[in-house]
């Protein structure tokens, strides 16, 4: 989950760790109106960061992500009804302490945003949303849950959110908390003391395709910097590196995780994006459901596929896909060299007739056709130590 839509805001927003990133020599970019680190050249840069997360551990500042809390009003059940109404996954299946990938939809079945829904209590939910869509999301949630007995609260600026990701992430975070992390399964969370901070939300979630944790600590600069430094210190023996949005993007792309404004948007519906397993039509009515029923009956006109370049060339976002005859048939939504695979990979929307594995397609790069083939996704899948049940 990450947004790259750039609203017209003159002053860039900053996370509480902005000054620290600059001190570390990060290359900063405008990401959805936020001044964010894209990579940290002094500690090796994007590819080093990517490989650290795949091979050991890295830490990301993801405080630009937004947070919306929805609680029941006077009557129990109001919060769940509201969440069920505005999201496509089935939040009633969540135990307290469990999270699920979901999305907020427009009535036409396209995306307001993708979200992670955490069930904090029987009548208490936390939705983690994208940075670039914060205002849109909070307004949408407030407006569309008016008929329910609920209290909506935006907590985006209350937290500094750090993502500690990689196969050694659990060992690093374990050094900073007395909570037994082995008891937290993938897509579950708990509250506990981290770096001396009581009642900290510790979630086994992330956007990298690796094991990892996201922690939510108070957003004052002193606490934020102290926590970041303690994570770096705890990870020193594991070769931890600070990681920017560049590595975050290549990691999520290899794992075929959607990026708002790319694979999902207000012009793409759930079926096209291939997110069927997170959309629970049987749970009852929700915003977008009737349109999705009609869309299912009508059939797909395009679908998201993974492609791998055969010719030497890198497919980039918004490049056109062509068939053998040179007719434009689709578009690349995300494309990049894959540091893990050593290949150039991309996600693209193409008509279903071109989506079969092994199908040869062409990507138009600076006016030339470059050969590519449709491959299985995710491009990269981590080896799981034990079967960890996921919230679907």
């Amino acid at each position, binding site marked *: 989950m990450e947004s790259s839509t750039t609203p017209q805001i003159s002053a860039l927003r900053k996370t509480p760790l902005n000054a620290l990133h600059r001190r570390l020599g990060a290359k900063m970019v405008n990401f959805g109106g936020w001044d964010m680190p894209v990579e940290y050249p002094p500690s090796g840069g994007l*590819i080093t960061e990517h490989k650290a997360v795949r091979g050991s551990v890295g830490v990301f500042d993801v405080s630009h992500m937004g947070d919306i809390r929805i609680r029941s009003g006077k009557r129990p059940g109001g919060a769940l009804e509201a969440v069920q109404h505005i999201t496509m996954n089935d939040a009633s299946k969540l135990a307290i302490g469990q999270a699920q990938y979901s999305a907020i939809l427009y009535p036409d079945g396209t995306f307001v945003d993708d979200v992670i829904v955490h069930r904090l209590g029987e009548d208490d939910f936390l939705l983690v949303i994208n940075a670039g869509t914060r205002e849109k999301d909070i307004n949408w949630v407030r407006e569309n849950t008016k008929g329910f007995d609920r209290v909506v609260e935006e907590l985006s600026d209350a937290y500094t959110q750090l993502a500690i990701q990689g196969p050694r992430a659990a060992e690093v975070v374990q050094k900073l908390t007395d909570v037994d992390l082995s008891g937290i399964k993938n897509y579950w969370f708990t509250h506990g003391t981290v770096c001396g901070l009581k009642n900290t939300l510790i979630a086994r979630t992330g956007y990298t395709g690796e094991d990892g944790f996201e922690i939510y600590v108070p957003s004052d600069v002193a606490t934020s910097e102290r926590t970041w430094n303690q994570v770096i210190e705890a990870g020193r023996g594991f070769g931890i590196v600070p990681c920017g949005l560049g590595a975050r993007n290549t990691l999520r792309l290899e794992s075929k995780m959607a990026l708002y404004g790319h694979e999902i948007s207000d012009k793409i519906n759930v079926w096209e994006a291939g997110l069927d397993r997170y959309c629970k039509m049987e749970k009852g009515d929700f915003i977008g459901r009737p349109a999705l029923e009609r869309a299912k009956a009508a059939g797909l006109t395009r679908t998201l596929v993974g492609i791998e370049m055969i010719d030497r060339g890198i497919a980039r976002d918004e490049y056109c896909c062509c068939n053998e005859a040179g007719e434009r048939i689709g578009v690349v939504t995300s494309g*990049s*060299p894959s540091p893990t695979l050593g290949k150039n990979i991309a996600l693209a929307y193409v008509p279903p007739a071109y989506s079969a594995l092994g199908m040869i397609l062409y990507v138009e790069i600076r006016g030339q056709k470059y050969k590519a083939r449709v491959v299985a996704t995710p491009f990269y899948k981590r080896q799981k130590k034990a079967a960890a049940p996921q919230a679907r």
Partner: protein
Amino acid sequence: MAYPKSYRYTKEHEWIEVKGDLATIGITDHAQHELGDVVFVELPKPGAKIEAGKSFGTVESVKAVSEIYAPASGEVIEANGELQNKPETINNDPHGAAWLIRVRLTNAKGISDLMDAAAYEAYIAEKGKETSA
């Protein structure tokens, strides 16, 4: 990294070293630093004509595509084939081993107007101030 005194530099961050009617062209240390890890280079073949101010190839990092502009006009006599397999050389030795092309100049006019090392260093220092403001 030092900017060789014998080179001339463009505002688009290419360098050119001229010896008689032959020239070697590359991108600057500043350019490779801005790009990040270089993963791909596309260069013209020997015989191709390049024209001052026009793009003659691309250098790509994981995140970005960057066009390379010709500091002068001429005919390509050699492209650095080593960069196909080792594009990261551009990050490691941009002013030396990672030269991009050698050309026979058809017109040396304008080269003396390009920046010398001192002017280029002042130019990128000024740019650095702008972006951090």
